């Protein structure tokens, strides 16, 4: 509770400081709009539905691409952790591709898929899959062998050992890979949306792009705030509970 109050006070002070800087009139309001005009833009965009629609389009692309990336990355990582052949081939490829900033997939996606939803999904999947694959592989390989031996003496075999022992034991690694994959996917999707107009749906990136075209700085800042808020919320809602779970169970952190 005290921490929440402290955080709120900080943001109130931040916005007040911003407002004071604008009030001095040293910078043109075209370049530095006041918090009030940004709030007014957000209010308008909220009322006419553009904000909700754009957030919906972006979130949908992210969600689908992320889930596809997870569904491919997890089993591939598990396979690659168990086979030297896969580790030396697919594992090495994944390591290489993971170092590639996922924005670099955008030109390729456009040439392959054209200006379609598939191009967007491809970029998100590429952002997710390699981090998840590498984290899963590393996590599974770092499971202490004694856990598996103990489980076997208790009658655990095959799939049961995977689901009840190997996966839970490597979960801290996997979740940190998922978090990284999420971060890569989110960044590359924003870049792709700013970069290309896709007629099947206008995401937050497009609103940012049009804000620039129209010289509407209140829109640009407003959308940036929305993007930050979504990123923060995703972190707090999707990943913080896992991290708290690990801290409690494994006794790490704090």
């Amino acid at each position, binding site marked *: 509770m005290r921490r929440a109050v402290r955080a709120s006070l900080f943001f109130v002070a931040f916005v007040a400081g911003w407002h004071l800087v604008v009030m001095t009139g040293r910078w043109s309001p075209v370049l530095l709009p006041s918090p009030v005009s940004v709030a007014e833009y957000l209010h308008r965009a909220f009322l006419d539905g553009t904000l909700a629609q754009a957030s919906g389009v972006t979130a949908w692309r992210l969600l689908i691409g992320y889930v596809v990336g997870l569904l491919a990355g997890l089993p591939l990582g598990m396979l690659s952790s168990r086979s030297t052949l896969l580790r030396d081939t697919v594992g090495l490829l994944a390591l290489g591709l993971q170092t590639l900033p996922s924005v670099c997939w955008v030109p390729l996606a456009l040439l392959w898929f054209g200006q379609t939803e598939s191009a967007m999904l491809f970029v998100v999947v590429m952002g997710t899959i390699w981090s998840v694959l590498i984290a899963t592989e590393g996590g599974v390989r770092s499971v202490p062998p004694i856990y598996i031996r103990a489980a*076997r*003496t208790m*009658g655990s075999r095959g799939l*049961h050992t995977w689901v009840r022992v190997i996966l839970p*034991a490597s979960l801290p690694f996997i979740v940190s890979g998922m978090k990284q994959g999420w971060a890569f996917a989110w960044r590359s999707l924003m870049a792709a949306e700013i970069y290309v107009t896709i007629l099947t749906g206008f995401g937050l990136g497009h609103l940012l792009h049009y804000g620039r075209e129209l010289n509407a700085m209140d829109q640009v800042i407003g959308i940036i705030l929305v993007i930050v808020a979504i990123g923060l919320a995703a972190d707090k809602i999707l990943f913080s509970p896992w991290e708290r779970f690990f801290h409690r*169970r494994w*006794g790490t952190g704090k």
Partner: protein
Amino acid sequence: MSAEPAAPAQSPERLKLVVAGVTKVFKTGSGLVTALENVSLQVREGEAISCLVGPSGSGKSTLLNIIAGLEKPDQGEVLVDGEPVVGPGRDRMVMFQESALFPWLNVIENVLFGLKLKPGVTNRQRREVAEYYLQMVGLGRFLKAYVHELSGGMKQRVALARALAPNPSILLMDEPFAALDAMTREQLYIDLQEIWQKRRKTIVFVTHNVREAICLGDRIMLMSPSPGRIQDQFTIALPRPRDINSVEVARHAMEITAVIRRWNQPREGRTSP
């Protein structure tokens, strides 16, 4: 209390465990190492705690792993209750030097792990069994604790409860107290003897500590290294519970260490110039 069906009538002469001519060779960087050479032993039904004692490299842990089914012998075979061992199984539970408890589960969930794999029991019975054994090892108040919150001694108590809960035919213990401090260890010697008196489980206990073996064991099988062999056997007939610091334990320990020293001497004589 146990969720097992009633055990068939037992004759005292039935053999619980037979190890027949087991040989195990490992490949290492510097060549082949014979961890076990033609090792045979028998444990009768009703025989309590058998200790495998020996220095490192005498193959005692390898032998335990082979009995557990975690490793396969190159030659020979192991029979438990007359059945050949082909892999790990709940009839032979193992306690390791590290507790090997799962950190993502709390104390009672760890004990339930093996019980949940046991067919023909209701979840309620499983829970009762788990609570019974946790109470027996003195952790009745820590059912919901997480593994990292426990001390080393408490972790080994949970591991003991986890190993006893599925009611194995044999309990295999691989230096389970070696990583604990002396005071915790001494308490666990007393507790293990008490628990043994309650459950009468056949236990095979591996240790390199002669006094520990005498304190716990009814039979001591002395193993020697390179190649790993059972060199000598002793029966310890001291009354229970035994105190590791008692004069009788110390006296037996002296006799056995003297035997070990005797087989070391000629070897040392050879190597000295």
